[in-house]
């Protein structure tokens, strides 16, 4: 779109609502603008997509822009005029694009795979990642603390809090993916994880275990 045809916020809204005769052009201008923005993001800012062909990325950006356009139109009334309309629309598009990428990445994982299966990996009483073996006394202390940590998790947290904490905080699965699998939404999950970590911290601190102490105990040296 050239400078000349750049619309004001009011002109965008009027056109997209069909109050002016240029609705088809406005829809196409916006769709193409969102597509260019998404394409830029996918091709320049996402190293994880570097293996895709230009054709594939273009196709992906096209699909995402189409979805984003629909989302923008559905939510037109929530735009409050506190930025350029196109920036607000791009925010909607970014959300659509990133959500798609997150969902695609975890499409084949069940909730169990995102939580329970990973348990042995981080609570396998084998805290030493490198090849240096700790002194026997230190190893014993590490084992004891890990056992207490494991017990605390089971004593202090509900099953849902446990699932949420492991999936989100340990396995770094995006909250919107976990929320979907757990039948909740991202905001509620954020709060669930938040409460879980607070409860766990209080539980551990009541037993005299501070972060400094634990980090020092397990640090490689």
């Amino acid at each position, binding site marked *: 779109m050239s400078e000349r045809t750049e619309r004001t916020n009011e002109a965008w809204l009027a056109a997209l609502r069909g109050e002016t005769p240029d609705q088809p052009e406005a829809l196409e201008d916006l769709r193409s603008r969102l597509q260019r923005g998404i394409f830029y993001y996918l091709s320049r800012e996402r190293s994880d997509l570097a293996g895709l062909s230009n054709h594939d990325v273009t196709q992906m950006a096209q699909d995402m822009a189409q979805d984003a356009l629909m989302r923008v139109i559905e939510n037109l009334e929530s735009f409050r005029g506190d*930025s350029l309309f196109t920036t607000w629309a791009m925010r909607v598009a970014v959300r659509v694009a990133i959500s798609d990428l997150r969902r695609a990445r975890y499409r084949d994982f069940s909730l169990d795979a995102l939580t329970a299966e990973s348990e042995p990996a981080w609570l396998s009483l084998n805290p030493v*990642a490198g090849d240096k073996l700790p002194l026997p006394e230190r190893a014993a202390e590490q084992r004891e603390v890990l056992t207490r940590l494991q017990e605390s998790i089971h004593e202090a947290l509900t099953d849902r809090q446990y699932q949420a904490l492991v999936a989100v905080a340990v396995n770094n699965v995006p909250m919107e993916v976990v929320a979907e699998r757990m039948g909740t939404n991202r905001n509620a999950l954020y709060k669930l994880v938040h409460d879980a970590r607070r409860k766990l911290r209080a539980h551990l601190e009541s037993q005299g275990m501070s972060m400094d102490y634990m980090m020092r105990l397990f640090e490689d040296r």
Partner: protein
Amino acid sequence: MDEQLHKLIACIFDQHADNNPIDCETCSIHFHRLAELVAAGASVNELLPEVQQHLDCCLECNEEFQALLSIIVAENSGLVASE
């Protein structure tokens, strides 16, 4: 140290979010306005410190905000190809 164990300990004791009432939805409502201001040189922390706090402890919101910001900056500097 095992990386996952490290993450778990860091997460449990992370006090970032403790006194911060902002959730993801409330945070992202500001993104379009912030992206324009930050693209023009402002700092999130000075404009809305509670949003900065949330971004510091929420990977997802941070990813979304940085993505939007990168596009707006690119658009402003003519890096996003026009047809």
